[in-house]
């Protein structure tokens, strides 16, 4: 791929052939407002916020315009600002404005845009149409769908089609009534949705938001504990609780993508049924024991069994769920005790 040189606001920019002007600008740390653009998805050109001017050609949207050698791009002038302000205000005017009560407060792309253009309260009031009060779809146990916070950027629709591929949702109805809908406008759980949460992850506002709005205090980079795909995740942690998980976009296995289990199924870590102490069965019931008591008993029984029947009386099933280090030491221990009877559920 060839390299292209052009300019944005007089700055010389180098980009790869085939990149769009918006991609190149963001890459170089130049913010151009945008709502419907997402780096994982094909450009859509719906929000009209990423307006720019190319010298000699007039206004155009930067998310769909490929870079060209030598072109001169302007991101701000009175004409652009006017067009952009109107586009932004039309979206903001009818948007829910109780930001403090919103799950995405301070992590909202619409707030970014409002901050960029600067809100003028009076103008917004004039633009307000009939207040929409559409029902929230809370059928899915992992996330809400609140059409009142939707900006119709279509990112969720394209994510479902281009990333997951199941295509459970689309634009429905016309004009002011336009909304994102499942087939026949049923609750999301009655659609083909697989609850992967990819749309929730990409929604620029809180139109799609996780249930349970606690945000983690820190994140730990690790690997999903479910299937063998080995997706990279960041576990969200607060105190000693695991609160959430999100995909690791830099992991080449999953590029940040996850499934319902990998994204939402971590309640087991904090679950009260977790074993917290060794147990010894006495007269048919388990009683709590110290590590020394339990391990001494295990060692004594292993020795007794082996003395009675020979070293091969001992056998072990290791775990496809535990780490390499755990597994290595498991077979090392059994083989060191004289038996090769070590296997695990790979044979199932």
């Amino acid at each position, binding site marked *: 791929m060839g390299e292209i040189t052009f300019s944005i606001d007089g700055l010389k920019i180098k980009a790869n052939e085939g990149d769009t002007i918006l991609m190149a600008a963001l890459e170089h740390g130049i913010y151009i407002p945008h709502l419907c653009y997402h780096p994982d998805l094909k450009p859509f050109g719906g929000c009209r916020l990423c307006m720019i001017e190319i010298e000699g050609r007039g206004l155009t949207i930067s998310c769909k315009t490929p870079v060209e050698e030598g072109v001169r791009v302007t991101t701000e002038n009175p004409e652009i600002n006017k067009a952009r302000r109107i586009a932004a205000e039309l979206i903001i005017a009818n948007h829910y404005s109780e930001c403090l009560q919103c799950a995405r407060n301070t992590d909202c792309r619409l707030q970014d845009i409002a901050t960029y253009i600067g809100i003028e309260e009076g103008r917004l009031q004039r633009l307000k149409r009939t207040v929409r009060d559409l029902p929230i779809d809370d059928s899915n*146990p992992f996330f809400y769908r609140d059409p009142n916070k939707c900006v119709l950027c279509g990112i969720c629709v394209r994510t479902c089609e281009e*990333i997951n591929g199941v295509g459970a949702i689309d634009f429905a109805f016309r004009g002011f009534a336009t909304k994102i809908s499942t087939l026949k406008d049923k609750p999301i759980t009655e659609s083909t949705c697989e609850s992967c949460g990819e749309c929730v992850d990409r929604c620029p506002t809180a139109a799609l938001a996780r249930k349970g709005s606690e945000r983690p205090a820190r994140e*730990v980079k*690790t*690997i999903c*504990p479910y*299937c*063998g*795909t*080995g997706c*990279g995740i960041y*576990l969200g942690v607060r105190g000693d609780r695991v609160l959430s998980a999100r995909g690791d976009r830099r*992991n080449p*296995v*999953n590029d940040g993508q996850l*499934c*319902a*289990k990998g994204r*939402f*199924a*971590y*309640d*087991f*870590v904090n679950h009260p049924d*977790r*074993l*917290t102490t060794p*147990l*010894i*069965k006495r007269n048919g019931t388990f009683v709590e024991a110290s*590590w020394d008591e*339990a*391990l001494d008993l*295990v*060692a004594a*029984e292993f020795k*007794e*069994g082996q003395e009675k*029947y020979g070293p091969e009386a*001992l*056998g072990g*099933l*290791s775990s*496809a769920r535990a*780490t*390499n280090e*755990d597994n*290595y*030491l*498991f*077979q*090392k*221990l059994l*083989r060191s005790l004289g*038996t*090769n*009877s070590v*296997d*695990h559920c790979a*044979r199932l």
Partner: protein
Amino acid sequence: MTNTVGEIAGAGAILLTGSNPTENHPVIGYRIRQAVRRGAKLIVAEPRRIPLVNIADVHLQFKPGTDVALFNALVHVIIKEGLEDKEYIKNRTQGFEYLKEIVEKYTPEYVSVITGVPAEDIIKAARLFAGAESGSIIYCMGVTQHTSGTENVVALTNLSLLTGNLGVPHAGMNPLRGQNNVQGACDMGCLPNVLTGYQPVYGDRETDTYWRRLKLEKGEAVAPPPEEIDTSVILADTIEFETPVYKGMSVSGEIRAKFSRAWGVELSDAPGRTIAEMFHDNPTRRNRVMYIMGENPVISDPHADHVRECLEEMDFVVVQDIFLTETAKYADVVLPAASFAEKDGTFINTERRVQRIRRAVKPRGDSKPDWEILQLLAQRFNLNWNYSSSEEVWDEVRKLTPHYFRGMSYERLEKGGLQWPCPAEDHPGTPIMHKGKFARGIGQFATVEYRPWAADTVDEDYPFILTTGRKLYQYHTRTMTGKTDGLNYFLNEELMEISPRDAQALELTAGDMVKVTSRRGSIETKIQITDRVPPGVVCMSFHFGESAVNVLTDPAVCNMSVVSGLKVSAVRIEKA
């Protein structure tokens, strides 16, 4: 996998068989859908109408257990139409002429009768696969959990070799491993016959299983392996030895000597038992003392009632887990382990990528990481173990397994995962295996014949084939997923899939309870009427202890891999 997950989206054609990735490996399911969006041809060879059938170019809906016939027919058509990769076959393989001879009789018409797949669909699939720029074969336990499991894989491999798809991008043989670290557990030597990196601890032949020996000793007939391969010759080329090993020397003897020195113990060369043999029919051949770490065989192993009996009869059972599982209830001692979120270490994924996991929170209560528990136990046997971190354990693995892991220090893994083999610090890892040259040198076509091999055959008393699978919203025996209410909301009970025609014949309606009986036992389950299964076939998951499908399944194994034929059991269904 010979190739990487990321390559799937760029494949020219995908043959998906014995796998339901949109439910069981969802992110790989996304990759397959992305490939189809980009124009890849998708062939689904699968007895069930899995979700991906909706976007497939052709669905080969074959009768469970007839895999070998179907794959041989694809090979037949490709050769007959001259679609094979002649250059590749000439330069990189041997045995083609014999393969040609063997598959001669597998005409689409003949195989159509065996498998129930229309002949024209077989021809269409063969042309699509052979005609693509690159062809990726993706498969899972639906291929391996058969009494002919190894033969199924061999037949598939022929297809891949024939079309020149091994050792090239967007192609290859890609088994999807079901658990986060099932690859690692194998690579770490948690198999009776091999130590880390598949270094043989006894027996120098791949096919030298305890099971096979046992049968031979007893004079029982066993299926001949598809091709007797003397792996000692290959291993001697790939494993690094401290002193030179020549052809004819016992490779396993050298390996035992190396590990004995490193561990300070004398290693035994007595064959160990596989899972199937640990729960052997004959009590004198079973283990008497069991150590079960992070596994739930009472729910997950075939013929579950028998497994329970075996555990009850053992002298002593210790279970180490994060919950009091169904299996733990049979234990004499239960040891509390830390979960993945509470420890450091590494997992190896389905594409051989070693990746770091990191401690996010502290272990619950008094629980400890498995490796620490093992060390405390080892010290009670006066074994000189003094690891202070998982990294020290890993460094020992690297030292003893240089041909796989020497180049993978924790320091390097911090920056991102690496795919084995990675024999040196400056080695980039191996995203695509068998590039230019096969691990064994020249690629071998190994011929296999179809035989009606399932041990558990359908008859008047047991007229249905029961197959097993997993569901999107649960995982395995629900030890972990059963604790997430959101997942239970979607699925909290077994729903056996039965076809509309069979449901009608048995006068069943959706949600009815039925009694399902096999030659081993009987369970009750709710049903779901769906065309996902063809008439004559029913499907259950093994997620739910209340409707434990493994009470029914057949413990008969594949003679070579000693994997149980879980995918085919004969059952009878009655209204409960």
